[in-house]
């Protein structure tokens, strides 16, 4: 690759674009005998037209649950407690089952986490793309549908000979491309890619990521990419939302997050990205995590935060825009009356 595969220009202009997906106060809890696990505990974010938003965080922070909450695919013991998911000027959470079913895939598609097992083993590849097209658009002539599916294959770089094959006859990378082809079959507004490349080796991962990006650019679709590979994220997305224990603690443009991470957790996360030139210990392991059933009052990150203050133990930090394209939920940043933001640490060291 001679050119970088990301497109940063959109970062500067996204705020002028239309909002395609607006998530407000989404809460998803899992019921356990000892009380609810607060997997996603009130997240808010907007997804703009044509942008790719990365959702990162450590395992178990609720990023996949958040995606499933948006897709309305939470199954018991999980449940959506509250929130709104606005897509194409209607709230997905207030819809009947049938209304929701009609919007699935036509407006909101998924590239699944485990592409290896995401295809029905007893159906031909073509049949699995055909069924979603025909469910939403009605029955089609055999020739038309074949032409359309082969066109989709071409877009994701799949050979036409897999048309009549079964999933077990395909490699992992090919299956993942089939999933991408399937996701774009109905030209949705938003695609959620849930760790879609995690299970692949780095070479295939890169090829699949490039395919995803190319397809995204060609269609102008908005995308939410979930993952924990910060390196891949840096190349693929326009903005990143950092999640910690069911909360979004920071949303920022890729450059802002990588060069000037605002939230202490983001800082630790960026510092922990492995580097070739130096070996460094993983800082994030310091401190203890709280019980996800019973989070402490105040800031969610207080138990592991190196800068924890009294205020953090009682008051939940508001979201503060510390600089353009960067919003952080942390008491370290105080918005002044004139609209400027100061870092409390600066006051402490320079009185």
């Amino acid at each position, binding site marked *: 690759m001679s050119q970088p595969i990301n497109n940063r220009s959109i970062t500067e202009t996204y705020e002028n674009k239309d909002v395609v997906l607006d998530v407000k106060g989404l809460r998803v809890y899992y019921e356990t005998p000892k009380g609810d696990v607060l997997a996603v505990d009130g997240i808010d974010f907007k997804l703009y037209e044509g942008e790719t938003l990365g959702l990162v965080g450590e395992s178990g922070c609720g990023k996949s649950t958040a995606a499933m909450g948006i897709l309305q*695919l939470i199954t018991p013991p999980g449940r959506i407690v509250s929130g709104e998911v606005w897509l194409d000027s209607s709230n997905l959470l207030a819809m009947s089952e049938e209304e929701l079913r009609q919007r*699935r895939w036509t407006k909101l598609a998924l590239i699944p986490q485990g592409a290896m097992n995401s295809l*029905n083993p007893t159906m031909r590849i073509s049949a699995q793309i055909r069924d979603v097209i025909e469910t939403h658009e009605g029955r089609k002539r055999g020739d038309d549908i074949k032409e359309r599916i082969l066109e989709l294959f071409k877009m994701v770089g799949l050979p036409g000979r897999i048309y009549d094959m079964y999933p077990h006859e395909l490699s992992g990378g090919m299956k993942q491309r089939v999933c991408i082809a399937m996701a774009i079959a109905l030209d949705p507004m938003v695609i959620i890619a849930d760790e879609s490349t995690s299970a692949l080796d780095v070479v295939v991962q890169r090829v699949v990521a490039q395919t995803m990006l190319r397809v995204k650019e060609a269609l102008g679709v908005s995308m939410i990419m979930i993952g924990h590979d910060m390196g891949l994220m840096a190349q693929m997305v326009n903005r990143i939302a950092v999640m910690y224990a069911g909360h979004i603690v920071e949303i920022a443009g890729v450059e802002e997050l990588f060069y000037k991470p605002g939230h202490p957790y983001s800082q630790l996360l960026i510092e922990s990205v492995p580097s070739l030139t130096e070996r460094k210990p993983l800082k994030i392991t310091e401190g203890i995590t709280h019980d996800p059933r019973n989070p402490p009052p105040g800031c969610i990150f207080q138990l592991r935060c190196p800068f924890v203050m009294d205020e953090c133990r009682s008051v939940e930090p508001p979201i503060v825009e510390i600089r353009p394209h960067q919003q952080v939920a942390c008491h370290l940043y105080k918005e002044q009356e004139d609209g400027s933001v100061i870092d409390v640490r600066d006051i402490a060291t320079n009185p």
Partner: protein
Amino acid sequence: MGPIPRNYLMRRLGIFFLTIFLAATIIWLIPRLAPGDPITAMIDRMTRTAGYVENSDIIIEGWKERFGLNDPLPVQYVRYLGNMLTLDFGYSLAYFPTTVSQLIAQALPWTLGLLLIAVTITFLIGNFLGAILAWSSTPRLFKYLIPAAMIFTSIPSILAALFLLYIFSFLLNWFPMLGSYELGVTPGLNLEFIGSVIKHGTLPALSVILVSFGYWALGMRGMMITIEGEDYMHLARAKGLKSFYILYRYMVRNAILPQITALAITLGTLVSGQILVEYIFAYKGMGTVIYDAILNQDFAVIQGTSFMLIVMTAMAVLIIDLIYPLIDPRISHGGK
């Protein structure tokens, strides 16, 4: 997929014939290890009915000579195998001039018919109920009713048969107590005969169905729940496919595969369960013939009927094996 490759077919047929050969050998060996001698037993029976049989020693000797029982065992064994190949099972010792083949020819259609219908209904009903039980869109009422209907699963088929006989034949008098059809009816393709056969076959079939459909239902339910958690189910729901389409094309289609394997494995058990049921209803099938033969120490009939049942079961398993790759695309004939 496509046509069955020749070498796979040959290998599978080889296993089929090996099974039958081994079965034939065991069937031949076991009665010769067991105490008792059929000819002496028959003379004893004659003595019991007639009081005294003249020259019984000569009769025994003569018959032993005639049936070749004085030859060395290896000679008897080879002759036996040759006879089995030509489906010549000899004469019934208890009903002397009748050949075993004639007895089997009379009984086999009844057993096959009853078994085929009972197993098909059991398999369909069981899997249907199991699928319904696991499906999220099923009304709650059904989910409570179906397990209640499965109490019969925990009792043996003979008890179910007695229970059904008592309720429906004795108390309610809806169905006949015994037999395969009414005595006055002439067998043939007439409505009266067919009606009579159905009437007589209902309770025996029902006792097989009642005790075994729960087995299939529970197995199916378990498979459906496993598949519910598969990644492809997750994607199917995200695709917004219709609930019923997901049920049959994604869930049942995949859940039924291990059930078909289980059917091939349990076929033998089903046959043996049927034998007892047939006896209770005095149904003119293989079960009754085998039971009579055991009582009479009628070796030739035991050998012949057991052999035919084994051949039938092995054939059914062979057929399931040969069609399985057509149902599951992941299984190719004989691998690569």
